[in-house]
């Protein structure tokens, strides 16, 4: 009985204990707060890392096939792949696109200036031919101004097949959002639903050029405005094995902004048919982008299933594996995470490292308890002697001091967990309040990619931290408690 009574009494009457409780409180609270914000940041970074990648991308190797002698003709068109894709319930949308590298230059004197300026300006451009189901969209586009006037959301819904599944770029990537996002330097297209319409300002003497949309950085880099023409030059393999070049003029319809500078500097979007034409039918598509109904749930499994089925149907290339079985050449069916493997791995590593480093805080608070209890044992030698004289056992004395550590751990962890969770939940309110109070901006929303401080309280993390703090404090209390049990009551009693 006296153990609980005495430990509680010592806890309440010795102020140093509040330093211990405070230390654990701060450690646990800070750990939860920081890890929650880290998790939030990492989660948001993950979204940013993903950028405009689709859930899955299927890119059959159309060249270099034939290790097993299967015909290459079946993968010349995306149709068989699409057919298999739409046979799968987990597929929400799929859309083929054609990607080719080229160089671009603005027209007239500006081009000369640019080309003369530095060769670095003339970097490789990614031409992306996308499927937009334009005819179907046209009807909707006619209604778009009306919808907009009524304040209804402008969302492309056309291009869906009877089963409600879409087959266009808008449904598989963020392209539509990039078109609608407010540009910083470029100029938006007139109608994001129909990005490849020639701008009204466009006048030409000859045959009208097809319209393209460029990344805003590229557009401003080439000093172009909508209605300007741009020359695109690329090279193609010719059937006899040599290389030929192809060039064509396009009219700039406007710009898009993904927010990622690298992408906005190198991408040109156009209709897939136009790009195919530029390449003289050399290639119909280079990849099929897939959106799943729920990536987190189906993504990985879908990849495995598709790879197996496509390989069995001879739609993707494969070779003999180590044990003689046929395996798909890697990289033909990729999830977006596969494409960002290195960075995602780095983020995970960082989080683990962070947790390990922050756990040192727990060790520090454990040491605080250790020194407080050690001090108390030294200070309370006489009391320990008295307790022994009135019949307390060494074990009882040990548990009394262990209990003091326990109360410290219990209160500190409880308060710390509550404080940490509250802090992480209301971090933005706290930041605003603090910024107002101090008159400084703590979290600059213009520097960061985020509109608010991201924070993600994970119950498991909280549990681990609480358990860690609790056990480490108890472990640290064990040593002074053990020493208390070994105090010789006589030495303690003999002297005043």
């Amino acid at each position, binding site marked *: 009985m*006296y153990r609980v009574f005495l430990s509680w009494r010592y806890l309440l009457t010795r102020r140093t204990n509040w330093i211990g409780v405070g230390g654990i409180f701060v450690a646990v609270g800070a750990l939860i707060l920081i890890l929650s914000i880290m998790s939030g940041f990492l989660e948001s970074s993950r979204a940013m890392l993903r950028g405009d990648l689709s859930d899955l991308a299927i890119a059959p190797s159309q060249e270099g096939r034939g290790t097993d002698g299967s015909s290459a003709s079946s993968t010349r068109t995306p149709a068989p792949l699409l057919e298999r894709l739409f046979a799968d319930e987990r597929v929400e949308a799929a859309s083929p696109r054609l990607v080719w590298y080229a160089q671009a230059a603005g027209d007239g004197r500006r081009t000369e200036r640019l080309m003369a300026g530095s060769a670095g300006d003339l970097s490789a451009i990614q031409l992306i031919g996308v499927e937009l189901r334009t005819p179907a969209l046209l009807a909707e586009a006619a209604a778009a101004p009306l919808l907009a006037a009524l304040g209804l959301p402008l969302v492309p819904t056309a291009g869906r097949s009877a089963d409600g599944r879409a087959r266009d770029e808008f449904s598989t990537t963020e392209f539509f959002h990039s078109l609608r996002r407010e540009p910083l330097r470029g100029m938006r297209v007139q109608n994001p639903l129909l990005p490849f319409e020639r701008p009204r300002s466009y006048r030409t003497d000859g045959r009208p050029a097809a319209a393209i949309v460029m990344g805003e950085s590229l557009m401003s880099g080439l000093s172009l405005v909508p209605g300007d023409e741009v020359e695109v030059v690329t090279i193609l393999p010719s059937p006899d094995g040599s290389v030929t070049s192809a060039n064509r003029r396009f009219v700039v319809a406007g710009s898009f902004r993904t927010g990622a500078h690298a992408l906005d500097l190198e991408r040109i979007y156009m209709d897939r048919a136009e790009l195919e034409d530029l390449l003289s039918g050399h290639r119909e598509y280079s990849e099929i982008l897939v959106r799943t109904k729920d990536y987190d749930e189906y993504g990985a499994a879908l990849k495995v299933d598709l790879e197996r089925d496509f390989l069995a149907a001879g739609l993707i290339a494969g070779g003999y594996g180590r044990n003689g079985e046929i395996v798909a050449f890697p990289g033909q069916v990729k999830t977006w995470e596969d494409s960002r493997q290195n960075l995602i791995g780095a983020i995970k590593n960082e989080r683990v490292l962070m947790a390990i480093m922050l756990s040192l805080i727990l060790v520090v608070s454990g040491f605080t308890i250790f020194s407080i209890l050690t001090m108390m044992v030294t200070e309370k030698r006489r*009391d320990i002697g008295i307790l022994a004289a*009135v019949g*307390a*056992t060494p074990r009882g004395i040990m548990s009394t001091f262990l209990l003091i550590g326990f109360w410290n751990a219990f209160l500190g962890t409880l308060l710390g967990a509550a404080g940490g969770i509250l802090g992480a939940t209301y971090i933005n309110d706290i930041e605003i309040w603090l910024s107002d109070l101090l008159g400084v901006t703590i979290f600059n929303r213009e520097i960061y990619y985020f509109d608010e401080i991201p924070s993600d309280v994970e119950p498991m993390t909280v549990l681990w931290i609480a358990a860690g703090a609790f056990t480490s404090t108890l472990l640290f209390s064990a040593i002074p408690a053990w020493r208390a049990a070994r105090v010789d009551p006589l030495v303690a*009693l003999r002297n005043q």
Partner: protein
Amino acid sequence: MTDTTTTSVGSGRHGGAEGTPILRARGITKSFPIGDRRLDVLHGVDIDVGRSESVALIGTSGAGKSTLLHVLGLLDSPTTGTVELDGVDAWALSKEKRASLRNLKIGFVFQFYHLLPELDAVENVLLPSMIRYGRGAYRRRKRELDTRARDLLIGFGLEERLDHRPEQLSGGERQRVALARALFHDPPLLIADEPTGNLDQATGSQVLELLFSEQKSRGLSLLMVTHDARLADRCDRTVYMRDGVVLDPSEVKDPLPVVP
């Protein structure tokens, strides 16, 4: 001289074999290692304390009186020899059992009171009971124990001091609280080491009056170290010590070698 006259004054309600003394020590030696040498403090002491008997222990300073009390009070182990408390060979017991024996059978009163500074007077008195009972058992008795502790302290003239902490009490008051703590759950043996050594004459005799009247009324055995001849006279028997041995009364020329 080690022969004991076991004067049974009390009712003998403390159990144990009636005929045996409450305390019987045989051949107690105690030596302390000092560096690589050994300091022999007790050289084979035999002593008995009968039931309800009061014994005064007198001797020169450094004779080993306190050391002997610690061994007899089960606080320090003898180098050789046995201590039987209420018929039980105490130093043969496990630490835990010995602690519980100490709790049940012995009440201590020290020269320096030795109260716990964080506890008030009532709580200090209750401490041995808290140690004795488990959580549930203590809870059940709490009200009764509490009332008894208060009554005892009030009986000692401390009704105004019940919830004062030791630092708020005078020396005499502290010693009365310490006495109450020692007596609270009626141990058969009371061990006191110069209980008035730290008090002035008047306060000291007040405490002594209490001590003796409680000893008589409760029928306790008392073993008390003192330097005060008048005090020794009030005890049933006096034991003289010098240089770690108990003297035969006939050898004692000057009955009080040390007068404070």
